[in-house]
């Protein structure tokens, strides 16, 4: 009986000492992870789509925090994300690169779909429904138009269509004032330059 007790106490005591040493080491060798990276990462949509040119949202956040990337590369995040990041970084907001393009929407021609599920796996926002050997289809409200599903489709049955204007997104047009007309002209010049 006492032998078991000795064994328990010695192993437990040793483990305790090792644990304490590690706890102290944790404090001594504590590494600050860059809080800025985490905050930028929290603003990003986490679709990991790679349209910013980085392998995911976190690497893009690191690049922005290090000042190596502009704030306007996140396409799914759109204007709102860009403004939030610009605000956080204290830089001038810049139009999101792809914004000039009309919002796109993936569309699957169902009679050609072979039900291979490859596009489902590619979709970063889970906007494609379907099962193996069943037709797949795109949930229009969830599709960000990232085009990642087009490439894997073996029968090329996915089209990128212009996103129809949904009633949820519709807003009253701005009043036709002198100021609005000036703005329109200026925006037109801007687009012309780009």
């Amino acid at each position, binding site marked *: 009986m006492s032998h078991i007790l000795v*064994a328990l106490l010695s192993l437990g005591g040793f483990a305790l000492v*090792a644990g304490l040493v*590690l706890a102290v*080491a*944790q404090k001594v060798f504590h590494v600050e992870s860059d809080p800025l990276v985490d905050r930028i990462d929290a603003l990003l949509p986490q679709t990991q789509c790679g349209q910013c040119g980085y392998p995911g949202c976190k690497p893009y956040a690191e690049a922005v925090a290090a000042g190596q990337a502009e704030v306007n590369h996140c396409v799914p995040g759109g204007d709102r994300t860009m403004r939030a990041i610009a605000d956080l970084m204290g830089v001038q907001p810049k139009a999101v690169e792809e914004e000039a393009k009309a919002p796109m929407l993936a569309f699957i021609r169902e009679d050609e779909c072979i039900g291979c599920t490859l596009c489902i796996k590619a979709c970063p926002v889970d906007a494609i429904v379907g099962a193996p050997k069943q037709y797949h289809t795109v949930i229009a409200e969830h599709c960000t138009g990232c085009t990642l599903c087009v490439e894997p489709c073996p029968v090329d049955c996915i089209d990128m269509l212009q996103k129809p204007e949904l009633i949820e997104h519709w807003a009253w047009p701005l009043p036709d004032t002198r100021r609005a007309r000036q703005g329109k002209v200026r925006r037109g010049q801007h687009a012309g330059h780009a």
Partner: protein
Amino acid sequence: MTDVTLILLSAVLVNNYVLTKFLGICPFLGVSGKVETAIGMSFAVMFVMTLAATATWLVQRYILIPLDLLYLQTVFFILIIASLVQFIEMMIHKTSPVLYQALGIFLPLITTNCAVLGVALLNVQKDQTFLSSALYGFGAAAGFALVLVLFSGLRERIEHAPVPAAFKGSPLTLITAGMMSLAFMGFSGLVKM
């Protein structure tokens, strides 16, 4: 002095843990893609192995033998190695982030590197003094480092060689490892320990 040379020669060349005892093959194949990572891994293993050899010797001498707990040897040793590796991981993360990134997953994997446990277990079986067991641990680690760096050098060169498609990648790596092992077998009988 002859003792020191003998122990080192024995541990580094004759009883090389990777090529003659076939322990620690995982990092040997996994981290040998580039010379720089191989060198980083070698230093980490050297540090862990030497410390593990001394720490396990102390535990064996002052806890396990007096309390008659030799049947707990493996559990104790694993505990020591795991805590040591954890400690070193924190230290490297703090002192050299570049090395930390380069070692990546292989640093925590030293915990399960059987060569480290192998050194600790074989060491206490040999009934050595404290200093010679520390030296033996260091020698074994140096042998591991030598082989790992040499092998990564070989692999870097082979990478650009025109190789038949069937041998590309892992097959050629394994064949190279086998050749190296054959070469190291040549040292057997150099030192009797």
